[in-house]
């Protein structure tokens, strides 16, 4: 049963975090270089962080980076870890975490569909939520949904009653 500080010591000793922060009670965030991340996942999994809540992806368009965030939780420490790493937006390739958590295959598939990130080692990346989608992956910041909608669909003008200024 570690507290946040002990957890951070463990991480600083065994992994090479770029930045570590106690965000709030029971919440820690750790930044790692892409090459150390997969190894960090298996390390933490063997240290009671068995629960992978989900994998999130954030598109930092201006900084040309995708930020992948792995949310782990331990049933002993009751602490959330957000493991963060940044990969280049082009080409946007990362390794799969499927061997450590098989369920990660579907989180990666979701990120691939909405951000276009390739996960080497995960061959199950075809379309799941959208259907024959030919445009930019929609969650990328450079995809403008309002512009897309305005030229795909027409709006009802309530035979002239709708006043659009």
């Amino acid at each position, binding site marked *: 049963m570690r507290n946040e500080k002990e957890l951070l010591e463990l991480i600083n000793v065994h992994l090479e975090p770029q930045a570590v922060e106690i965000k709030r009670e029971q919440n820690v*965030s750790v930044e790692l270089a892409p090459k150390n991340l997969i190894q960090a996942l298996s390390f933490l999994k063997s240290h009671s962080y068995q629960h992978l809540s989900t994998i*999130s992806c954030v598109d930092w368009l201006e900084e040309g980076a995708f930020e992948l965030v792995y949310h782990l939780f331990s049933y002993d420490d009751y602490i959330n870890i957000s493991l963060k790493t940044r990969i280049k937006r082009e080409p946007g390739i990362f390794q799969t975490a499927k061997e450590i958590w098989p*369920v990660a295959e579907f989180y990666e598939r*979701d990120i691939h569909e909405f951000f276009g990130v390739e996960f080497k080692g995960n061959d199950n990346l075809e379309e799941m*939520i*959208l259907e024959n989608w030919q445009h930019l992956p929609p969650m990328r910041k450079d995809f403008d949904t309002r512009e897309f909608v305005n030229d795909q669909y027409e709006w009802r003008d309530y035979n002239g009653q709708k006043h659009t200024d």
Partner: protein
Amino acid sequence: MDKSTQTEIFFGPNHPGVPGNYGIIYEFEGDTVTSAKANAGHLHRGFEKLMEERLWIKNTALVPRICVEEPDINEMVYAMGFEAIGEIEVPRRADYIRSIILELARIQGHIFSIGGNAAGIGQYTVMHWGTLTRDYILDIFEEITGARVYHIYIRPGGVRQDIEDETFDKILDLMDELENERFPDLEKTLFENPNAQKRWQGKAVITKEEAVEMGATGPVLRANGVPHDLRKMMPYAAYDDVEFEVPTYENGDAWDRIKIARDDMLQSIKIIRQLIQNIPDGPVQTDLGNGLKYKIPKGDAYVKIESKRGEYGYYMVSDGGLKPYRVHVRGASTPLGLYGVREFLPGTRIADVPVWAKSLGICPPEFDR
């Protein structure tokens, strides 16, 4: 396996046995499913994209629409995410009211899913009762928040309006009615009914290891003797002021999960009574200034709470602007609905596929988003 005896079945998205607009494509041999995969995406509206286009206050109206069975969970997690990044204190009375709303939502969610599960095995009486009981709770919601289903009531910084005293009395009366009349009837009709027990016992078994590996929480874990509940592990709102137990069972099958739903409801009634009894006075909303200019500093937070199906979390990122930079929704049944179907549905008999899907509480809008 000889191909000629293999057939592919599209189970859903239009099928009474399927929990919502969601499909499972499975192959079977004889009477047993051999392989299956989820056919999701029918309810995808791109919430996460829409949220990036709207001011913070506007998303309070959009967010409950993510999961229609439990709108209040989404409102709560969104508000908690905003408060975590912005380090905003919520008045204690608002915490109490939020917990009351969340427990009422838990009861209406559980009773509705017990009804749904019963319909899955043909017990239509219990379905009628489940929906009827839920409707009485919706009447209470309508009185508190002004809407039946989408309450738009829990807001960053507190709740929208206070609860009047006579509404508290109505809640307490309803709790008594549930505990003394409706649940005993339900107990006799469903839980002591041998047909129902046989129909659910040993079905859709998910062991503790499989659940932890997959990241499934809530009833799936608690049916394997693991007393994990975020209201105890990471207390939020007013849960640190109330006593309640976390019911667990041993076998990890559908029958245990439905009994957990029943016991959860009884605990929720106990919680609501304690909350109403010692609710403090005071304001219910911190003053965050002009609603059109809500702004929190740059930062991110992963916040999660215990919905009736387990951990429901948002990963929220703010770039210090007037709109969220990114919100990632982690529904409670995401691992089961996508990965669990492929891994654990095979081996189930065809007639039990609805039992499998409904007892695991697969709620498609959570992972379609």
